[in-house]
């Protein structure tokens, strides 16, 4: 997910970002990952639809190895939903919009 519409986060600012009062959905991706690209447009749509309710962010796993390691991520795209800094649920693979909406709604 290489879009500029989604804010990128890194290992350094990860913890403070996900501890915000608004729930966060973090898209762990890499530039060489086809399915990450495939779900890109859907993630952009969701970021627009849930503006103010859920913050959608992306983290490049190539540049930021520490956070994916901490969460045991072994496949991308992996999307993890956080509320007040804690993991609510996660999903792996190029899933459909409905599955992502169902995931996001778990934090609302």
């Amino acid at each position, binding site marked *: 997910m290489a879009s500029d519409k989604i804010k990128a986060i890194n290992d350094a600012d990860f913890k403070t970002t996900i501890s915000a009062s608004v729930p966060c959905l973090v898209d762990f991706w890499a530039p*060489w990952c*086809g399915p990450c690209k495939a779900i890109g*447009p859907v993630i952009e749509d969701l970021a627009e639809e849930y503006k103010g309710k859920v913050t959608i962010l992306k983290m490049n796993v190539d540049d930021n190895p520490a956070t994916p390691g901490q969460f*045991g991520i*072994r496949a991308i795209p992996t999307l993890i939903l956080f509320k007040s800094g804690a993991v609510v649920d996660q999903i792996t693979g190029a899933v459909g919009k409905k599955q992502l909406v169902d995931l996001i709604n778990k934090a609302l």
Partner: protein
Amino acid sequence: MPKTHYDLIILGSGPAGLTAGLYAARARLDHLLIEKGAAGGQVLLTDWVDNYPGFPDGLSGFELAEKMEAHARRFGLNTLIANVVSMDLTQTPKRLTTEDGEELSCDALIICTGARPQLLGIPGEVEFTGKGVSYCATCDAPFYRDMHVAVVGGGNTAVQEAAHLTKFASRVTLIHRRDTLRATKIVQEKAFANDKIDFIWNSQITAIEGEKGVERIRLRDTAGKESILAVDGVFILIGVVPNSEMLPLQLLQSENGFIPTDNETRTVIPGVMAAGDIRDKEVRQIVTGAGEGATAVLAAEHYLNTLPS
């Protein structure tokens, strides 16, 4: 009011859909290509494409998908990102409904919904997906640097991706339920010559186990002997299942989820074509999908010309 009717709708944006889109746009047909996400389909899961004509040095699946999309866009391809969940092909015009409840209609329809990786259906598989179980070596190989991974399967995808995995993993064990591989000779030769790949023949994987992630797999050979293999990851590359959930399979006379057609990609329903991996056929290659996409547009054009204007 936004436009909801098109002469031709193409459903899916893999090689078949993109080629159909290219032909439809270039022929100036009133068309819409509906895609679920970014274009490319299963090509996006392919590390390296070595057999697509016109690219003598080979290219990555990612790159080929981008080139195909750019090519179709040059002619003015119209696209919509939506997930079609149902359709009514008995009416005139034919109707499609998206997940958001949007209704679209068309006179001719080309179904290019493709296929997706098949699951093994064994304990631990779903539980450890993304935590050691993967269906895309291209995507996830870099997570297995200096580790030991298993690859399940014996076809082109499994053997080719096993070789790709050796760029990262220290050891790759290919597990196949037969004693010979189904993959193309040149792909087999490369795998046999790779000293990081070892083979377990005549064996099936029966369970995937671990604590937080994959730690070991259970195997059973054709004689019934059971064993355990310690691995850090399992790549399941055993074939595909059709993306047919939104299709009226009975109406299309499908017995297995794939759509039967004639040589011109026409299904039993007038004005409905099927191209690419969703078609009921033996050969599933990028180049055959592309060829069928082109054939389907010519069939669609022919059909549209028979309709009263």
